[in-house]
């Protein structure tokens, strides 16, 4: 029980096949060489820690197509079918190679591709081959008939007359078409061979056997089948070899680059931005030319399969800003390939002159425009949506660093940065007034610089200076006080934590602010830090450790929940309203805090209705990454307005609950500008808790608040 590899082949045919096979592999090797040489031209980047874990994780993701199945089960299943089909067929071909071309030459007695093994081999490969063809067909169907917005290659920043992306579409078609043709011809030659020879054991190839029956039904004679088999075998062989040669120059390369990219992914990507190299100090900060990209940057550019998930997830793109994370990656890739790794297929062209003239310059005014970079809110939706581990946000920030170093920032941003540099806040207000909001409280708030506290509250700029947000800060303070929490603030010892400053690309200012805060905090005695602002939380938690500040950092929603669940604040669900909750990017997607605010909302007696875009898929308000200091008047629809529309569409929702000071300003404004005043109220989570407490106390004056004032001061 076996079959001939080269059925009806003359010596000439066989030699020709080996010549072609070696040619294909040579082209493949050349293509891989071009890519590897390109990566080796990149700057150093250290991603070699925990190699076994990295390898296992990449294997797990690839094996399950898990990152593809996330948010798109159809694509996940189809991809898994193709991937496993391909892997099985590849292993199957390798087995034949070992058996025929190695053992057949050096030790014919050891050949094993026969007998019982051959039967199982036939069965498994037949089924996997069927899965492969079915997967390819499903993907074709999805691509051609589903009308998915993520597969629309239209650019956001150039009119259609200025570019052509037909090459992308052709590349996709070629990739799927080649796969389909290889799969189908493979089955056809199997069917024709079985129809011609009818070896009884080939019932173990169920698909081939069924095809042979169909060929018999069609009335094709055995000799005719045999002749057709010979012709189609060549076609199949040439297609397969062509695929080998084509792989490094095409979309098919993703099989290799995506695995590598997932392996060298940074778990803290965007959460903790890279520090500029200290030794040797670079001539300039950030990324200006191709030479400033690291090998991992160049690799991640090659990893993109144009799946478009980042493109549809991006709030800037949705708002009509000239940024699409997909196009940013593709533009850089085309540029890198054109300059560092010719030749490359699938290169769409700018009609007329390419925007970039300066050799190797990405910036400024090169392939990437400054406005594109400034559009990013660093919400991390792209990084989170990317199935192959591309880290768009750090790349964007690296390019922003270069713009900042050139002093090329818009006026309002410059003023904010200058104010931050001079006074530690972006409000152009005196640093001495940072703690002034506490003056309207009925109790004093401890100065954490002067006495030890259990909880050191890092209030943040917005919650300290914005009059509307000061009300919320006072609500938080009243709740902490009422629960008997031993807390204090830094008053004018606190400066902006620097999260957004860093994401703007002002690394020097970030370091200055962080160094100040680390030094101030080093002199204080406290158990943990709590922040109002999720942005502050992110940098304190993830970035300060590199600057010598290691703390336990919580969000005020977590602390409030703890106080409620420990019985220090008694909430009995008395509010009886309907509300929806907006996950702040830096709280949810960045730091995985999804539950605390939701449970607080439930405790307050608000029944939670989720928006379509929630948790990891939450939609940014548009304020992050320093956007809050920039002009957003050019946007077609501000992300915050789109978000309010999403909440209104839920129907009958009283509250739009948020847990981030910037969200309060963004959404209260959006409710007004989108004409939805009176339809929905923006409520901070602390206001909600206070409102629920008040509602529960109001009906019965006899019911004394258990926690108020009674709790002892926690020991320092």
């Amino acid at each position, binding site marked *: 029980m076996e079959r001939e590899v080269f059925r009806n082949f003359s010596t000439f045919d066989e030699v020709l096949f080996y010549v072609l096979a070696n040619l294909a592999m040579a082209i493949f090797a050349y293509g891989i060489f071009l890519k590897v040489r390109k990566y080796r031209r990149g700057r150093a980047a250290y991603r070699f820690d925990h190699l076994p874990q990295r390898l296992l994780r990449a294997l797990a993701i690839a094996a399950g197509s898990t990152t593809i199945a996330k948010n798109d089960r159809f694509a996940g299943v189809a991809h898994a079918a193709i991937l496993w089909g391909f892997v099985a067929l590849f292993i199957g071909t390798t087995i034949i190679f070992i058996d025929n071309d190695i053992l057949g030459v050096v030790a014919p007695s050891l050949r094993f591709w026969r007998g019982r093994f051959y039967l199982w081999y036939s069965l498994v490969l037949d089924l996997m081959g069927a899965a492969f063809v079915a997967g390819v067909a499903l993907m074709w169907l999805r691509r051609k008939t589903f009308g998915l917005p993520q597969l629309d290659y239209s650019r956001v920043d150039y009119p259609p007359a200025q570019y052509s992306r037909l090459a992308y579409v052709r590349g996709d078609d070629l990739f799927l078409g080649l796969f389909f043709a290889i799969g189908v011809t493979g089955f056809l030659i199997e069917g024709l061979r079985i129809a011609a020879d009818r070896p009884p054991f080939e019932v173990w190839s169920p698909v081939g056997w069924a095809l042979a029956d169909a060929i018999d039904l069609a009335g094709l004679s055995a000799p005719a089948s045999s002749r057709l088999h010979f012709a189609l075998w060549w076609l199949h062989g040439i297609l397969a070899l062509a695929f080998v040669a084509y792989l490094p120059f095409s979309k098919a390369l993703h099989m290799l680059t995506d695995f590598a990219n997932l392996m060298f992914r940074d778990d803290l990507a965007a959460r903790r931005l890279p520090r500029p190299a200290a030794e040797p100090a670079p001539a300039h*900060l950030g990324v200006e030319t191709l030479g400033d990209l690291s090998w991992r940057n160049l690799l991640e550019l090659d990893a993109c399969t144009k799946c478009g998930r980042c493109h549809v997830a991006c709030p800037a793109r949705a708002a009509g800003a000239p940024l699409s994370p997909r196009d940013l990656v593709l533009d850089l890739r085309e540029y890198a390939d054109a300059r560092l790794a010719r030749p490359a297929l699938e290169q769409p062209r700018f009609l007329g002159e390419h925007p970039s003239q300066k050799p190797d310059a990405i910036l400024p005014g090169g392939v990437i425009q400054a406005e594109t970079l400034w559009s990013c809110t660093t919400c991390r939706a792209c990084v989170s949506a990317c199935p192959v581990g591309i880290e768009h946000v750090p790349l964007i920030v690296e390019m922003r660093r270069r713009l*900042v*170093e050139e*002093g*090329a*920032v*818009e*006026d309002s*941003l*410059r003023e904010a*940065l*200058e104010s931050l*540099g*001079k*006074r530690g806040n972006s409000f*152009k*207000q*005196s640093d*001495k007034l940072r703690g002034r909001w506490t003056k309207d409280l009925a109790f004093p708030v401890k100065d954490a610089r002067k006495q030890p506290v259990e909880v050191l509250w890092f209030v943040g700029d917005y919650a300290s200076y914005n009059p509307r947000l000061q009300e919320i800060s006072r609500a938080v303070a009243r709740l902490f006080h009422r629960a008997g929490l031993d807390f204090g603030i830094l008053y004018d010892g606190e400066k902006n934590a620097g999260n957004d400053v860093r994401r703007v690309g*002002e*690394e*020097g*200012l970030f*370091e*200055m602010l962080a160094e100040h805060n680390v030094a101030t905090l080093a002199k204080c005695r406290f158990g943990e830090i709590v922040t109002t602002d999720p942005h502050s939380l992110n940098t304190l938690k993830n970035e300060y450790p590199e600057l010598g500040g290691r703390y336990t950092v919580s969000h005020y929603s977590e602390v409030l929940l703890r106080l409620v669940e420990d019985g220090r604040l008694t909430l009995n669900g008395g509010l009886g309203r309907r509300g929806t909750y907006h996950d702040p990017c830096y709280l949810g997607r960045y730091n995985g805090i999804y539950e605390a605010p939701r449970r607080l909302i439930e405790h307050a007696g608000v029944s939670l209705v989720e928006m379509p875009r929630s948790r990891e898929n939450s939609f940014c308000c548009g304020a992050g990454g320093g956007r809050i200091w920039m002009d957003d008047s050019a946007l077609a629809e501000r992300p915050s307005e789109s978000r309010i529309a999403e909440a209104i569409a839920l129907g009958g929702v009283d509250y739009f609950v948020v847990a981030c000071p910037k969200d309060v300003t963004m959404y209260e404004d959006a409710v007004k500008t989108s004409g939805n005043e009176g339809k929905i109220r923006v409520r901070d989570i602390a206001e909600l808790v206070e409102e629920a407490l008040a509602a529960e106390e109001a009906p019965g004056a006899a019911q004394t608040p258990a926690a108020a004032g009674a709790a002892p001061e926690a020991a320092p």
Partner: protein
Amino acid sequence: MNGNEPSPGETLMNIVVPLQQTPDLVEELEINADGTDIDRDAVTLQLSEWDGQALEEALLLKEAGAGSVTAVTIDGGEADAILFTALAKGVDRAVKLKPSGDAPTGLDHHALARLLAAAVAQLGADLVLTGVQSVEDLDGQLPVLLAAMLGWPHVSVVTGTELRGGAIAVKQEYSGGVMAELEARLPAVIGIQAARQAPRYAPVSKVRQIQKTAKLEEMPVEAPSGEAGLKIRRVFKPEIAGRAEILEGEPAEIAAKLVSLLKDRGLAI
């Protein structure tokens, strides 16, 4: 202008930008003990906003090939920070002026102009760009005084400049969207209202780096004495002179209240 053919080693033109330090109005101002000035020991000083515009305009001229830019400020206060920032933005020389006598405050622009006129002469300037005004100019705007003392042509409230041979073309904006273009012979003093583009940002890392590597020049200046432009009798915080009453209620009620108020005060019959 002849900036197209720079001869090696030779500076084409020296643009001097005097930078004034004025109180940061974000901070609370206190009156000094004798009530003749704000408490200068308590204020935070910063670069005058309009001087920042003048610096930007000078840098734009430099980038167009005009020559070199020298930033000067009187020693003390925030002088170092202001000059390092100017260096980070691209000026060629940063000079701290060390007056022989007391440094004039911003309140005495006549004294300040005399000092700067001496400094400009020492530095050999071909062009002086400075802010058209400052938050402290009580006794006249600095560029006017400076030009008068130097005996140079002068244009103020300028929003853009261009060098043309031995002259400077300047833009002025008037109300109602009317623009004027004037030309002044060099050397000249130009009072800048706004630069052609928003002042550039000096990133902290660059300023920090320059602080480590660059050295600020110091230049003693003989401050000629002369009369002050004005004599200050008393400086005081705004005093409550009257009060405002806000009428509340429905439009009809408000109207009624207003009518009775006007009648009560004899303003209407």
